[in-house]
């Protein structure tokens, strides 16, 4: 009986493991916001990638967008890529925000929550800085001026690492 109860407890309580620094980035294939060829994290190996989960209903996310775009524009020639994974219930909401705050980095949709589940996102926004070898090196949950300053230094240090 105890064994049965223990098994039941495990089935009910097993949480998904959150992706933390040191873990390999989950292998994902995501559809761009505007449609077209899928974006894969594996396909970006060799670049430093910032995977950012954002939504128009999340105020810190909207504050992070111009900062991320600036970091992307500045570091793009050195091999830095930002992939913004949208978590709006309706893509129209995402487009409304993008009309107000346009960004130049890659935007993808995650209607099935596959990406959010693979990373086990614990808060919005959540950002995962992946090194050139495909390993998550830094995780940012939430976004403020401190995150922005830290992120800038982290991107710079990862870009200096060989692929």
């Amino acid at each position, binding site marked *: 009986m105890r064994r049965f109860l223990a098994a039941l407890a495990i089935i009910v309580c097993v949480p998904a493991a959150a992706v933390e620094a040191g873990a390999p980035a989950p292998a994902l294939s995501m559809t761009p916001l505007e449609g077209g060829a899928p974006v894969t994290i594996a396909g970006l190996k060799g670049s430093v990638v910032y995977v950012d*989960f954002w939504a128009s209903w999340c105020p810190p996310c909207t504050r992070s967008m111009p900062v991320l775009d600036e970091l992307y524009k500045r570091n793009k020639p050195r091999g830095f890529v930002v992939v913004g994974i949208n978590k709006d219930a309706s893509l129209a909401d995402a487009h409304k925000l993008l009309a107000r705050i346009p960004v130049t980095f890659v935007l993808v949709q995650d209607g099935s929550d596959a990406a959010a589940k693979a990373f086990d996102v614990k808060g919005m926004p959540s950002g995962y800085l992946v090194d050139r070898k495909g390993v998550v090196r830094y995780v940012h*949950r939430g976004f403020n001026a401190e995150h922005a300053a830290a992120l800038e230094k982290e991107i710079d240090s990862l870009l200096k690492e060989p692929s």
Partner: protein
Amino acid sequence: MKLLALLALAAFVAACAPVAPYQRAYLARDDMALDGNPGFMKAIEKTYSAKEAASGGGGVGGGGCGCN
């Protein structure tokens, strides 16, 4: 019989799924606030936190919009 009761309990427990932070698009809408007048409540909370030096005391992070 006990087994059936346990299975029923397990089924009910499994039905209580938490809303993940990234699934709060609908919960974050103003009209989903518990109070019917979110603007007025915001003003009351601001006054309360200023008077009581209790910023953040009126709620918890991630309660609605999942924005920490």
